[in-house]
């Protein structure tokens, strides 16, 4: 019998639950960060005399399956206009789901990080003895930043007018999977257990002065839209069709790639007056 995964040996423990900080003014930006999520995972391999664990890998795979990411800006007065910036929808973000891996790691490899020093992956060797318990860690600290001021260039306004951040909402929802991979470049993946988690920031803002950038910025957190949650661990592979297609066909772009692209190519709706934009439609 070949090297195999011991049934029901996959275990995930959440060792630190994430939390979000209130949005913070840093320079000319508002930043969204918090404290990280940490988890550990373990999988036991079995084998018979003559079998080898060489090349078996155990690690975490992560998908982001929801991104909410918009900001509303307003000028000092009604005639200074308003702007709605949408990052989370097409064409700024072509798809919601993405394969989440650290920079320098190809999403086509699926694993969150294949760098040994990161501790996110464990690899069996020929010298290992069965039963072999492979243990890994997981860490993530999602974050983002937006500009405090955007210039409104609506043609009706005449000259460009500074518009100040008035409200924002960000939500990043993830599914993290403990997976084992058989040896070789085409080695089969076994997705063994998973959990859902998310981080969310919603706030309204008011500059204390209308200089550009403003000297001070009042941040009012919207409690119902802010926080972080972690679900319970689910045994077996994920069956959520919102992202399981990516398990079979990993994309070329990672979630970090998408996040940077959507920030650079955000959709902008400018109005010459204070407008209440409908976030459900834009």
């Amino acid at each position, binding site marked *: 019998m070949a090297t195999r995964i011991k049934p029901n040996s996959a275990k995930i423990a959440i060792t630190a639950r994430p939390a979000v900080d209130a949005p913070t003014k840093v320079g000319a930006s508002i930043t969204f960060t918090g404290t990280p999520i940490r988890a550990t995972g373990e999988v036991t391999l079995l084998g018979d005399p003559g079998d080898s664990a060489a090349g078996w890998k155990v690690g975490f795979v992560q998908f982001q399956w929801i991104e909410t990411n918009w900001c509303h800006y307003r000028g000092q007065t009604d005639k200074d206009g308003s702007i709605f910036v949408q990052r989370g929808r097409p064409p700024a973000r072509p798809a919601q789901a993405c394969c989440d891996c*650290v*920079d320098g790691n190809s999403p086509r490899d699926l694993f969150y990080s294949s760098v040994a020093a990161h501790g996110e992956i464990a690899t069996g060797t020929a010298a290992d003895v069965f039963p072999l318990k492979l243990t890994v860690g997981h860490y993530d600290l999602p*974050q983002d930043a937006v500009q405090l001021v955007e210039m409104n260039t609506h043609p009706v306004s005449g000259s460009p007018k500074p518009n100040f951040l008035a409200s924002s909402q960000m939500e990043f929802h993830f599914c993290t999977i403990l997976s084992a991979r058989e040896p070789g470049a085409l080695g089969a993946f076994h997705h063994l257990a998973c959990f859902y988690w998310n981080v969310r920031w919603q706030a309204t803002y008011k500059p204390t002065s209308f200089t550009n950038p403003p000297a001070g910025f009042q941040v009012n957190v919207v409690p119902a839209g802010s926080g972080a949650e972690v679900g319970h661990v689910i045994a077996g592979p994920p069956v959520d069709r919102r992202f399981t297609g990516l398990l079979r066909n990993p994309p070329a772009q990672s979630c*970090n790639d998408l996040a940077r692209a959507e920030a650079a190519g955000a959709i902008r709706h400018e109005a010459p007056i204070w407008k209440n934009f409908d976030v459900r439609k834009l």
Partner: protein
Amino acid sequence: MNLRAVAAWSLPFLLCALSAAGCGLQHAAEPPPDDASVVVRNLALAGAFEVEDRGPDIQLASAVTVERDWKGEWRREVTDLTLAENCVQRPLAACVGLAHGAKLRPLRWNGLTCGSTECRAPCRANIYLGPGRFRLVVSSCDGKRKFVGPVFELPAESK
């Protein structure tokens, strides 16, 4: 600068001086040490650094390389650390000019792979790289010259 900071800063040099084999972290794949025309200097806090041009005016690559001592070899870590001195400069040009005698005080590396300074950035996957031994490497704009900073200890995350 307090005595503890001075001691921490001096320790790698003392260890090198006391070792007959020199600093054992150089390895074959590492580029040869460059001239000292550009000096990368660690500051008191881990990840804080300063760059001084002691040679002629130079164009430096804005991207800073973070290297980790991994089992005796220097391995490049992929981060978004740059020579930006404040959050207003973003996005930074690919190259930064530094005049003879001038110094840069870039924003401190916070140990993260993404959003690696206080400015933060759009990041979904993100790892804190400590604890470990690291060094920062600044390059000329054409990438042909490397200016390697001294080793420092990045502690485990305190948060």
